[in-house]
């Protein structure tokens, strides 16, 4: 690689020299009828005969010496540390071994690289090695937490009764073949459903507000939402305890727990949807305004459907957070061992709370149940994330194949309908000239509607048709008001 570069630089070097001879002889037109077009002249040295085909150059930046330095430094560091730990010094401990080996590795690597590179390149290599190892350390540690939980949950999970029974009949000393977490699963489902019913409309409304009604107030609200994202979860629990339970007089119940979860989920959903709605292309909005549609129609028919995939992701991410909240539920839900379907009365347990209560017991079977519950929770969160990833893989306005197909069909239907109506109206009022002008307007707006439709609005198929009908039933009102206002 290095030699290639120098030869290329060499090619630029002799360029002027090669160009020099023709310049004084430029007057001799018979020998050189046309001046040669500007081109790079390759130096023809004696070694390379011009007939040999040029070798394909590698554009990769990894060289053999890099790999060798890396492997060599690793081997040297490992063996030196081993020598120290077993033969020379009274060191011991796995963590110490790893740390020593790593520091020695960095030193050896710097030394090896410095044999054939200069200072900045050595620093670059060292920084690269450190960044790679930090990232590896974090990812391994986080993955380990998950794997550790799943692995410790293996004792409880194979028993089918773990998922189908509640803890009503299981005492603290009973083995894993009795009792399970059905009550916690059902409790989690009920609480998160109530939470979603409360937070999804409110969260989407607030996200729409932040984007569609911009101004100083919206900026302030955005700051408050950011602060609310970091609201300590125990404070959310205390808040609901102080309001719903002490002031309103609700029981410690599923509803109170859902309220506490909602306080935690709301800012997360708002911020994730805010980001997604901000990404909706402005051209789509402008197309809708240009058709004279009012703002709420623009939001309902253009902005929200375009951002649908991202909004779903936002809601799922909020759900994943809400499912795992322990401390707000701890203060508000109470604890029970029986299945409770009523969110209004009596305590209701959720998965994280059950895991938390199980591991407080010193019994190994209970701790195994705690890990089993945590594993179910982890699997649930993982599944939610995978779903979010699958749904949210597309940007705003980007359609799937079938979505595109539906949009094209809907747009074709609209076009036919407009054509029919235009024909009918011309036939009906063939006498007046104003009518034909109006028909013109309708046709133009239908063409524009087609453009917007293929942009990804009408993905919801037949439901759109009647609203579109309504939309274009008074095609005159929009523009008229627009002029009115000016």
């Amino acid at each position: 690689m290095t030699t290639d570069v120098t030869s290329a630089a060499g090619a630029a070097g002799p360029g002027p020299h090669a160009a020099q001879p023709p310049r004084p002889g430029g007057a001799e037109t018979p020998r050189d009828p046309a001046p040669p077009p500007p081109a790079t002249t390759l130096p023809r040295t004696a070694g390379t005969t011009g007939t040999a085909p040029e070798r394909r150059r590698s554009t990769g930046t990894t060289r053999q010496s890099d790999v060798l330095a890396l492997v060599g430094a690793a081997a040297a560091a490992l063996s030196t540390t081993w020598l120290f730990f077993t033969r020379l010094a009274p060191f011991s401990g796995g963590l110490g071994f790893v740390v020593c080996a790593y520091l020695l590795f960095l030193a050896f690597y710097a030394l090896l690289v410095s044999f054939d590179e200069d200072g900045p390149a050595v620093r670059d290599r060292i920084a690269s090695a450190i960044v790679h190892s930090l990232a590896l350390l974090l990812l391994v540690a986080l993955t380990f937490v998950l794997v550790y939980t799943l692995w410790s949950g293996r004792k409880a999970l194979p028993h089918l009764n773990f998922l189908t029974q509640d803890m009503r009949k299981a005492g603290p000393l009973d083995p894993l073949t009795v009792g399970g977490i059905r009550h916690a699963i059902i409790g989690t489902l009920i609480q998160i459903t109530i939470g979603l019913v409360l937070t999804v409309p409110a969260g989407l409304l607030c996200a729409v507000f932040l984007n569609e009604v911009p101004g100083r107030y919206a900026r302030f609200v955005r700051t408050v939402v950011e602060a609310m994202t970091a609201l300590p979860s125990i404070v959310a629990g205390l808040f609901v305890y102080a309001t719903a339970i002490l002031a309103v007089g609700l029981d410690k119940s599923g509803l109170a727990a859902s309220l506490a979860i909602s306080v935690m989920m709301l800012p997360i959903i708002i911020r994730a949807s805010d980001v997604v709605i901000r990404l909706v292309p402005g051209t789509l909005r402008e197309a809708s305004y240009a058709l004279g549609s009012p703002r709420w129609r623009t939001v309902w028919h253009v902005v929200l459907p375009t951002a649908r995939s991202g909004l779903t992701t936002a809601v799922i991410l909020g759900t994943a957070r809400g499912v795992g909240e322990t401390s707000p539920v701890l203060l508000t839900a109470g604890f029970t061992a029986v299945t409770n379907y009523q969110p209004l009365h009596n305590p209701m347990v959720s998965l994280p709370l059950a895991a938390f209560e199980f591991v407080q017991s010193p019994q190994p079977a209970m701790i195994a149940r705690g890990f089993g519950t945590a594993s179910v929770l982890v699997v649930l969160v993982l599944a939610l994330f995978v779903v979010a990833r699958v749904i949210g893989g597309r940007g705003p306005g980007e359609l799937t194949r079938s979505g595109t197909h539906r949009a094209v069909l809907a747009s074709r239907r609209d076009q036919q309908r407009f054509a029919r109506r235009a024909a009918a109206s011309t036939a009906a009022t063939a006498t007046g000239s104003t009518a034909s002008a109006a028909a013109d307007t309708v046709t133009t707006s239908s063409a524009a509607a087609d453009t917007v439709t293929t942009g990804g609005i009408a993905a919801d198929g037949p439901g759109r048709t009647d609203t579109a009908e309504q939309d274009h039933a008074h095609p005159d009102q929009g523009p008229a008001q627009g002029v009115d206002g000016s």
Partner: protein
Amino acid sequence: MIVRSVSIRTQPRPAGPDHGADRRRRLYSDSALPDRLFHAVARSGGGLVLAVMLLVGGFLLYRAWQALRKAGLGFLTTAQWDPDAGHFGIAAVLTGTVLIATVAVVISVPLAIGTALYIAEYAPVRLRRTLVSVVDLMAAVPSVVYGLWGLFFLQGKVIGLARWLSTYGGWFPLFTVDGADPHDPLATATVYTASTFVAGIVVAMMVTPIICSIIREVFSQAPVGEREGAYALGATRWGMIRSVVLPFATGGMIGGTMLGLGRALGETIGVYLVISPVFAIQPHILQTGTSSVSSLIALRYGEASPFGMSALMAAGLALFLMTLVVNFAASSIVARSRSGATAE
């Protein structure tokens, strides 16, 4: 219908043709009732969030007032927590909270910056999206899972490191451990467990993904032109990062760290499971026994008398105000820095 609309369109024209300069025009045609309704509903959506935040602060203050009036300024300086006897204050729990959060941030910031740099600058493009969603997933893993890991795995494994640190770093006041004798082979190891240090590691695992995803966002917004300029001047990749990416992202890095600090201050379950609570100011981070505001609330809410509940509300209010200050500072730093990226 159509004719009327045309007449509306044309009539105002002759009324004021010689107004001269154009008046400022409205960009939207939203003077109709449904649109005003939409406006109002959307504003109420924003108002809802404000109302919730105000209610949180207001109700906590209202419930805490009784205890605060009784304790007075002693609430900030008393270390004990015995509200029914009249001796209670948040000096110890507040110290514990701040120490745990500090340990967590000190551990997590290098990890977060390294991982963010790797994802934004070094990782192959194909891997990048996967890594981003893995980090996001880690941020959403329930805290009880990290708590279980800390309680059953980390607690035993950290003893060696804690003993080493206190033996060779004991001259540093934070690393002192009372009652530990490194030369006594039979000394119990329990003085090193359930400490601020262990809780700090657990909390660090929870906040690192959050800090990492904020910092990565800021890194990836570093201007391409300046990056290429650095490369064109012959910079290595690290040279480019040091001269372009890191200066650009300084504000974002500080802001992300403070947002992580805000999370670490409020962490409950992970801390509660790991520590053994003491109600005295405990500055030795390696020694067993510490406390935090949130774990105090989780520990005492069950047996609290009405007055005790009021005292717990006061502690919660203090925590709420602390996280609020940290977060507002963080978001203003992020917003004012050149990167100006919003978090997450």
